[in-house]
């Protein structure tokens, strides 16, 4: 149950961290724009080859690398995100317009809260966001204490790919500035959590008051360099 430091026996550590991903998996991918985007883990998932995937991420890929490259393989059946369309989201745009990918648009705050709910064992919750908008379609509406809410369900992942700044050997994580974004909630919401970090430090090095993601949530850790794992 303690975190495994993936040093890449028989491949890179990134490959080791995504090994065993099954077809049909739901994969949570951290990052807001490039901040906190686990690019190398996504590249490893492309190499790993699992298909029929559902991807949950704030955006739907930029340019031709990372998430966009994964989409371009045709192995993503469905994407759940808040903001797919960007200036450089041509890979997604093409797949969507030609009907080759399903899209669920979720307001960013509901996306974060639904991921948190999955990690926290909450069955569903009432959110005031999106009431009266097209994104309320099909959702249960309820008035509570004079305000109107929509019922929102958790989003569980089979695998989460996130990026943090530093891990200790127990998997405790700290992040860096706004690269923290979706990492901490996605780490709670997936059965297997793989994290790429700038460095791994000895257990006991991180300040217990400052740990953002406790090691209980983390399964696999890939340091950016071999030296960083030392």
């Amino acid at each position, binding site marked *: 149950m303690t975190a495994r430091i993936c040093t890449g026996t028989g491949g890179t550590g990134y490959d080791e961290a995504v090994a065993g991903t099954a077809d049909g998996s739901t994969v949570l991918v951290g990052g807001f724009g490039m901040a906190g985007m686990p690019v190398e883990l996504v590249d490893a998932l492309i190499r790993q080859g699992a298909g029929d995937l559902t991807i949950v991420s704030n955006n739907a890929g930029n340019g031709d690398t990372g998430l966009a490259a994964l989409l371009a393989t045709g192995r993503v059946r469905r994407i759940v995100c808040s*903001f797919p369309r960007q200036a450089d989201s041509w890979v997604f745009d093409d797949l969507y317009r030609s009907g080759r990918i399903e899209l669920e648009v979720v307001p960013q705050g509901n996306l974060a809260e639904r991921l948190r709910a999955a990690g926290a064992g909450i069955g569903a919750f009432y959110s005031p966001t999106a009431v009266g908008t097209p994104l309320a379609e099909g959702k249960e509406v309820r008035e509570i204490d004079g305000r109107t809410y929509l019922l929102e369900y958790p989003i569980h992942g089979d695998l989460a790919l996130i990026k943090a700044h530093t891990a200790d050997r127990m998997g405790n994580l700290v992040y860096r*500035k706004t690269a923290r974004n979706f990492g901490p909630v996605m780490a709670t919401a997936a059965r297997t959590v793989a994290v790429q970090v700038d460095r791994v430090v000895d257990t006991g090095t991180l300040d217990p008051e400052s740990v953002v993601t406790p090691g209980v949530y983390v399964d696999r850790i890939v340091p950016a360099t071999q030296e960083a794992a030392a």
Partner: protein
Amino acid sequence: MSARTKDDIAAAIARDITAEHPDGAYVNLGIGQPTLVADHLPHDSGVVLHTENGMLAMGPAAHGDDIDPDLINAGKIPVTELPGAAYFHQADSFAMMRGGHLDVCVLGAFQVSAGGDLANWHTGAPDAIPAVGGAMDLAIGAKRVWVMMTLFDKQGASKLVPTCTYPLTGVGCIERVYTDLGTFAVGPSGVHALEINGIDIDDLVERMAPLELHLDRVVRAGGDR
């Protein structure tokens, strides 16, 4: 007096934030034009900026060596950190908004209705790819949500409308609309002009029709009436 430039509008918003929150305020400035408001806030205003991707006490845009790819705003533009900053994750950041802890949020808009409905996320074009980001969370995410926009679109149609024709972002959530031609309060009692800039009042009323414009609260009129 002429119509207001973007900077004039931003300055008017900054002036009202500081005047109406003399002890300081926690403010979220939407991506695009609303970010200009930051440039017009006095250093001693006590205003603390929130960016929904997970930070309070966000500083100005970063340049040159100050650019850090891990430190960006909601528009994905590199920014800086001010003393007293705090970082938090997405669920905590949106909890802060959804829970009503921010004082003011300033957003752009395609349309605002007389009752305060906001449309700013989707043009309604059938082939448009839907993308909402934090827009719907922001629309309901502060004690007071204001809009900054041009009053008329490129075809000359008023963007302050009796009822939004674009898909909604939020219902009854807007309190005030700042435009090049004036500032307006919206809500249950309809649209009240608060300030009119660079246009004759009669012209304004005519061009905004069929919207009913109440003139009982105008405190500054820049037209020639």
